[in-house]
């Protein structure tokens, strides 16, 4: 294994190059088969010549706290295939990728077959030694090092051999040539565009003798032209017999190069399908079909007066000309993809950032917030989409998290906090929201996602908000617990609170909102009523950007 790894990179890549050099440019088809043959014989010298699975995953479950991220997932990845792992945010696709790469350890009972051996879990080292390479969304390159140093970085690992620049350069050169990337090996990576950095990351995987390359959301930050270049690169990898796994939020972009598609919803695998029969529509149907079983539309309460009115709100580079009204007792969905500016809008409504122009009125009165405290005073609450980093103070107790927003109201004489008052408040809301916590003194991090979210909601309910902005309220919440959060949202509306739900999950917005604003490229692209469109139509419009 060990000698294999050291000998392979130059051998593998070099072999490919030789095969390429041998065939003429016009004979494209022949060239490809020659490449593949060349790569095969060199790479798979010891292993079986037939196309078998490179990795087999059986019964993979993973829990975080009380939360299932994955539930009994089986997956086989064939040698040399391009496999797309597809699903909405939080469906467990990234967790699955991290289990293959050894970052996470699956729960007991899992079996991972790789390199002809069964493992209950993989360590990052084992995974790497079996040829698994992950290209993360942030690419994990060294910005201050040059292209060639990044590509040949693995040469520096695991041995005490002296550092030889020429060896690194040769290896990088080979990888760059093999992928036909036009990159200057001496350029520092920090000077490159994202797309170019991605090329460096791909070359690094190749130079490390990858047999399986996992790409986490590779198209998320790329313009369309660059996506095409990426797909071309993936075809090259495939020709070399390397398995490529796309972990992708969206299907259409990578469908053309994919062989098979695995669809995941809420930590469960729906199935693996050949890419040929798959399209956008069918995928939406698969996800939605599964989802609709999980719950029905919640009932609307009678909406009252206008609570929030926004006119022409603009903040350069984030959102522009946003106008809408939100009434008391109404649940408004603001649906848009990640990066559409929806969270940026919410931050301005919450006083965290200042809009450049436009106006905001709360119950008819124009407001201008200097900071988040002005917004809270005016009756605005904001549930952050990032519960781990911003929504709750994870290491601190359930109790303290819940009353954090209203600490000043718990004071008695001399300005000291009354523990009795605090405990009463906490006990009341733990009961009313049915928060399952063994002990309110425990760190909030030990609660399940759904219960954590309820604590975060309680924190805002306690401030007596008029307007509550909920950013991805069920992100990272178990399927079963999602319903609980949704019912709670309805109950808030019944208490005459104007609720805005920001989400990229169409089904969630569709089932729980009275009106839906489609947010796209920093502005409102359309308004829909769930009574008049079907979920599938809506999903089609929103997910196509």
């Amino acid at each position, binding site marked *: 294994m060990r000698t294999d790894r050291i000998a392979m990179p130059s051998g593998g890549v070099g072999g490919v190059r030789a095969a390429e050099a041998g065939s003429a440019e016009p004979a494209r088809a022949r060239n490809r088969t020659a490449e593949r043959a060349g790569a095969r014989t060199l790479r798979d010298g010891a292993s079986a010549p037939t196309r078998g699975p490179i990795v087999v995953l059986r019964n993979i479950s993973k829990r975080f706290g009380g939360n299932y991220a994955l539930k009994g997932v089986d997956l086989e990845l064939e040698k040399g295939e391009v496999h797309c792992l597809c699903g909405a945010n939080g469906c467990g696709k990234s967790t699955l990728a991290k289990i293959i790469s050894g970052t996470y350890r699956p729960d007991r009972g899992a079996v991972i077959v790789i390199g002809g051996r069964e493992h209950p879990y993989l360590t990052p080292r084992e995974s790497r030694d079996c040829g698994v390479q992950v290209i993360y969304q942030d690419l994990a390159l060294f910005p201050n090092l040059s292209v060639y140093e990044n590509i040949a970085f693995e040469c520096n690992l695991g041995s005490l051999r002296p550092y030889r620049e020429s060896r690194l350069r040769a290896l990088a050169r080979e990888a760059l040539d093999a992928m036909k990337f036009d990159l200057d090996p001496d350029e520092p990576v920090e000077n490159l565009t994202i797309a170019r950095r991605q090329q460096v990351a791909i070359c690094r995987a190749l130079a490390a003798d990858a047999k399986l390359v996992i790409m986490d959301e590779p198209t998320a930050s790329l313009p369309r032209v660059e996506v095409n270049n990426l797909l071309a690169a993936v075809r090259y990898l495939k020709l070399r017999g390397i398995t490529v796994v796309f972990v992708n939020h969206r299907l259409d972009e990578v469908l053309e190069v994919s062989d098979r598609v695995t669809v995941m919803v809420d930590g469960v695998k729906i199935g693996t399908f050949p890419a040929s029969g798959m399209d956008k529509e069918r995928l939406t149907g698969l996800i939605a079909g599964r989802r609709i079983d999980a719950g029905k539309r919640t009932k609307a309460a009678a909406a009252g007066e206008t609570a929030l009115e926004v006119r022409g709100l603009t903040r350069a580079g984030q959102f522009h000309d946003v106008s809408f009204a939100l009434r008391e007792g109404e649940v408004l969905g603001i649906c848009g993809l990640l990066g559409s500016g929806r969270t940026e809008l919410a931050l301005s409504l919450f006083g*965290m950032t200042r809009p450049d122009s436009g106006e905001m009125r709360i119950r008819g009165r124009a407001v201008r917030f200097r900071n*988040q*405290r002005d917004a*809270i005073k005016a009756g605005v609450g*904001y549930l*952050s989409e990032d519960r781990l*980093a*911003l*929504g*709750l*103070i*994870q*290491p*601190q107790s359930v109790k*303290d998290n819940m009353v*954090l*927003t209203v*600490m*000043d109201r*718990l*004071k008695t004489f001399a*300005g*000291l*906090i009354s523990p009795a008052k605090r405990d009463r408040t906490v006990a009341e809301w733990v009961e009313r929201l049915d928060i399952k916590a063994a002990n309110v003194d425990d760190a909030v991090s030990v609660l399940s996602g759904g219960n954590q979210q309820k604590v975060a909601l309680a*924190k805002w309910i306690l*401030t007596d908000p008029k307007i509550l902005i909920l950013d991805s309220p069920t992100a990272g919440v178990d399927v079963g617990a999602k319903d609980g959060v949704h019912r709670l949202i309805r109950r808030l509306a019944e208490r005459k609170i104007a609720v805005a739900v920001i989400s990229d999950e169409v089904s969630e917005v569709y089932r729980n909102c009275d009106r839906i604003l489609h947010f796209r490229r920093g502005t409102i692209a359309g308004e829909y009523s769930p009574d008049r469109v079907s979920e599938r139509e809506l999903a089609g419009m929103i997910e196509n950007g």
Partner: protein
Amino acid sequence: MRKTAFLTIIPALGLPALALAGLATFGALMPESFPSKRTFESMAFQMPELGLLTLAMFLPFVSAGFNLSIIATANVSSLFMAWLWTSRIPADAGAATQAVWLFLGFVGACAVAAAIGAGIGAMAAYVGVHPTLTTLGVMTLLKGIGISLTRGAPITGMPPAVQFLGNGTFLGVPMPLAVFAAAALATALVLGKTSFGKYIYMIGSNINAAYYSGVATHQVLIGIYVFSSLMCALAGLVMTARFNSARMGYGESYLLLTVLAIIMGGADPNGGFGKVWGVVLALFVLQIISTGLTLYGVSQHISLAMWGLVLILVLAVKYCNRRWYAPWALRRQAEAVKAPA
């Protein structure tokens, strides 16, 4: 449930146990000299200096910050007091005039300290520089200014009232200990019973999440360093009183010992957790070790080494607790809950 509840309390008993063990050991080694009023008095006179400085370090520490300038701030404020008292109080002043001047001197020193603290806090809050870096600068700045103004010489000859504060006893309680006890109590009240104190813990764990919850993090940060600096002024007062003089450079060896006491007292090095009583207990343990060893005739340097050793031991025990004991206790509790059902 009731029967196993004590299991989770056991780890909290570590420091009191350590203090008792220390007392018992030295008591057994020196049955005549150690368990005496004199021993405890000398401890009561020595501990408050380090104690007050530790309290000054404590708030920044809990907020996941740091204050390297505590000693320098204490010295600058004590220099200010000493200068005012030695140069401005007329030799023939009556008790009332003296009292006014003493009060003015202390208030002035507090104002100086508060200004320093506000500056540090503002740098942390508005400029976003980590307090460790700011206070490194402030420490060096204050030290330079202080030494150049005094040419490194001490200001000596404090009024008798001040000397009493350093060396006298009131109702049998040494004055420095009384000052320290009051300061510790005040700190415990601020941290445990005020919203400001709660915000400090929250900021220590996650300042961004605290900000998103509407906490005025900027103001709280400034408050933390103002409070810390006021504790420095108090420490400066006690030091001036004890030594009957003020000088830039007093107590410099205390700087990192304060951190030792805080960590030993159970505060989380990452911020967000820590109790005043833990720190007070840790200080007590440290003082027992140093006084006991001194009485036993061991060099001071050895007792310093012992402090380091004890810290390492405490940390090792803490690790074992987290790794093995706490999970075991939790399992036992869970079983005890299940069993009757």
